[in-house]
């Protein structure tokens, strides 16, 4: 039978050449430095997302499975937009960057790779991470780099919810039972050393100028929020020494290898597989 025009209307998705998955923006990073900076932010979001996803089905209550799963999904969205932008510089896509880089090529800060631990430890990590990200994206909205500014504007609305979630839980645990209070205090002591790395400047930041949000400039806003929360929860800022860190230059702690192995195994075992 000769194909008629009417036949053309019956198309299924399989028959169409669909573009690669959507993940925001078509713009190309303007320099290797901008791409490197986008990787810093992308890897923070990606590693934290991977960690939070592990809570699904294991959180203390069903609402928390859903909440942590949702937060992980938002972070994955941020990571995808940022990875895509970072990869636009040298022609790599988001999957190349997420699945086929080795540990020393990841730029995430050490706090993101700290183990989930118990629920209090995850909440303590969330408090630091989401308060930092809130300050970061607030500042980055005025970046001279249009793509970074757009991603920041989008992400900020979501991180606002993440921060509120962490704050509510810190208040609840600190004001709950003797045991819950003891656990959140111990958890904050454990993760506090890793907060500092987030606010360290770097020659990369100097080179980027107003395209980046200078890490040290975010500290005051972060401290103000933490002071308010701790004041209300009657907690003290942990008196612990800052960790060495080194994630921005590819040096990572032991948990990172295990985390990446789990995240990357499927894509590496079956390159090119889609599902």
């Amino acid at each position: 039978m000769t194909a008629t025009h009417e036949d053309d209307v019956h198309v299924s998705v399989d028959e169409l050449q669909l573009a690669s998955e959507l993940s925001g923006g078509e713009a190309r990073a303007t320099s290797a430095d901008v791409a490197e900076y986008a990787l810093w932010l992308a890897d923070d979001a990606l590693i934290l997302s991977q960690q939070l996803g592990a809570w699904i089905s294991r959180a203390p209550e069903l609402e928390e499975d859903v909440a942590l799963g949702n937060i992980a999904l938002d972070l994955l969205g941020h990571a995808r937009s940022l990875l895509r932008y970072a990869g636009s510089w040298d022609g790599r896509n988001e999957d190349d960057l997420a699945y086929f880089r080795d540990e020393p090529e990841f730029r995430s800060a050490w706090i993101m790779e700290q183990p989930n631990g118990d629920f209090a430890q995850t909440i303590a990590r969330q408090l630091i991470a989401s308060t930092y990200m809130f300050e970061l994206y607030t500042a980055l909205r005025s970046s001279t780099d249009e793509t970074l500014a757009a991603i920041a504007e989008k992400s900020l609305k979501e991180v606002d919810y993440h921060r509120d979630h962490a704050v509510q839980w810190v208040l609840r645990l600190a004001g709950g039972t003797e045991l819950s209070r003891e656990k959140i205090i111990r958890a904050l002591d454990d993760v506090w050393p890793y907060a500092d790395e987030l606010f360290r400047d770097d020659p990369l930041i100097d080179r980027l100028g107003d395209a980046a949000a200078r890490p040290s400039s975010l500290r005051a806003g972060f401290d103000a929020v933490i002071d308010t929360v701790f004041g209300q929860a009657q907690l003290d800022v942990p008196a612990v020494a800052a960790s060495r860190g080194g994630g921005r230059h590819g040096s990572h702690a032991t948990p990172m290898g295990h985390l990446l192995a789990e995240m990357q195994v499927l894509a590496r075992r079956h390159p090119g597989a889609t599902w």
Partner: protein
Amino acid sequence: MSTQTLNTATRARAIAARVADPEIPVLTIEDLGVLREVRADADGRVTVDITPTYSGCPAMDAIRDDIILALTADGFGEVDVRLVLSPAWSTDWMSEDGKRKLAEYGIAPPTGRASHGPIKVKLAVKCPRCGSLDTRETSRFGSTSCKALYECRACLEPFDHFKVI
């Protein structure tokens, strides 16, 4: 744009506007404010701009495919769907018609407008089943990124609320 490309764009927009959200099928992408712009060039190539509700929203890939399918089925040859992040999506863009359809579907629509300052005014959320304003949030995170879980103190039913952002 010439009159012809303008007509092409208008026709393409009308088709794209009918694409439904895969998670909340009573709403179209136009009701949601996800459809931002439809353009056409002299060769008939159509470009559709959409914006995600939430960064990680998995529905965006399905929406993109559905737009391409709908336009291709109507005879459009080359269709390009672009994801734009700025300006960031807000529930303020949801149409009044969309809010009404959402409530009829059993999801409490966003109440009031997104706040743009430090002071967040939280309005009561009306139960989509019995209409009572005596409701409470049980979880800020629900079955999809855009919804929160509520329960009604009057009829005791749990329900979804489309969060204001």
